[in-house]
């Protein structure tokens, strides 16, 4: 399978703080890559760096002509902004059919367009952002912390939605999460990140209790510290 993204020796420094240190990986077309790590581990920074928002050292090589859709973790002002869902989409495209199609893909009909963006539930809001990212037919979807547990019973979860989109649209997905079940159920490849990469590979092969406590916990650090003396 063709390589869609190649990252080599990536270092990201914001101000004087080194946020990501010495990260290398590859993503092939149609793969799902999850980035797992605690808060402040540099996950969001990694996504934004891949998007070209932050300066970096090292190499980020997207396949030529690749189109990227981005679903941010939250959009802070939207909740009290006087804007309808239709108007929000029209900031990105004038093509009404494309808007309708994108909304249908995430499970909304066209009546939904008239609603105010501030009126929707957080689950619906996340779907809207996914639909927004799908405008323009991206090859890759970058998704920052899909939230779980807010979907109403009977509806498909955000992960079932992504699974379906991946099949129907042949999407490559890079998503950031701290939810382990997502990593096991959904991803082909996982990067455990806490500033520097702690593990990389298939979820079942690389994730074990020791790696997790190294990624999240303090205990192992004390142990190592003790051991070194």
């Amino acid at each position: 399978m063709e390589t869609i993204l190649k990252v080599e020796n990536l270092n990201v420094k914001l101000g004087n703080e080194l946020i990501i240190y010495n990260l290398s990986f590859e993503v092939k077309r149609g793969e799902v890559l999850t980035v797992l790590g605690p808060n402040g581990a540099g996950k969001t920074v990694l996504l934004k760096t891949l998007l070209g928002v932050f300066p970096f050292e090292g190499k980020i090589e997207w396949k030529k002509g690749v189109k990227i859709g981005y679903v941010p973790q939250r959009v802070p002002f939207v909740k009290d902004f006087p804007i309808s869902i239709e108007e929000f989409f029209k900031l990105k495209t004038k093509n009404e059919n494309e808007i309708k199609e994108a909304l249908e893909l995430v499970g909304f009909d066209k009546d939904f367009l008239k609603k105010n963006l501030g009126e929707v539930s957080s689950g619906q809001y996340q779907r809207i952002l996914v639909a927004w990212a799908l405008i323009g037919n991206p090859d890759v979807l970058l998704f920052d912390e899909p939230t779980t547990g807010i979907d109403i019973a009977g509806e498909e979860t955000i992960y079932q939605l992504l699974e379906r989109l991946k099949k129907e649209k042949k999407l490559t997905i890079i998503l950031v999460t701290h939810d382990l079940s997502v990593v096991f159920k959904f991803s082909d490849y996982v990067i455990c990140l806490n500033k520097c990469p702690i593990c990389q590979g298939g979820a079942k092969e690389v994730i074990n209790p020791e790696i997790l406590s190294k990624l999240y916990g303090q205990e192992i650090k004390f142990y190592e510290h003790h051991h070194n003396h």
Partner: protein
Amino acid sequence: MSTIIITNFFPVLISAVFVGGVAGYLGSLMLSKKMTIVVDPLSHLALPGVALALIFGKDVSLGAFLFLFFGAILIWVLEQKTKLPIETIIAILFSISLAITFLFLSEHEIEEALVGDISKIGKIGSLITILISLFVLFLVRKIYPKLTLISISEDLAKAEKIDLKKYQFLYLLSISAIVALGVKFVGGLLVAGLTALPAASAKNLSKSLKVFKILSPFFGVLAALIGIFLFRITNFPAGPLMIISGFLIFLISIIFKKG
């Protein structure tokens, strides 16, 4: 003085309507905290510009524009380069502006600098005001969708490969121009109200961008009209009356605010 005002009443009224309307339109883009934080102190920088123009007998709008334009660049640079909180930069710029104003001006000039003096606006001044307002209106119309997206989320805008700096610069330039025109009507101290009040009122009554985009300039026009007519009746300074009119519209908008 009163005869000058009466002969120029209609040109002044019309130019006030244009400035009020375009200021309201620009204000509708100021909803995000970051934009407000930059634009509000910027308008205070109009004061030293007006002061210097009065000292040298130049047009106050010209003085204000030069100070605003370089002030905009200064705030822009300070915001990007220093690690100072933006509030600190605001406090510094605001106090130095006031200090310069009070140091060099006579009492009457201070009043003009602070609350404006529409008797100084002649026919040609009105025409220039209208032309610049129209230019800003068309410029802002062109960049409105992208600026809206930037206001909603800089991340989404960056993901769309929108050149944030370019659009923010054009916005600051537009604000500088309108604020510089506004100081003639309402002075350097009240001018922030020209952009902030109509937008706040319109936001209370809007659920969609379409309505918001119409209501905000409409309230700007309305406040200018009411203010200038009140001035004609009462002979109180026009500037404070325009701002008070804007505030009354805001109060009414709260009553009708949509849940």
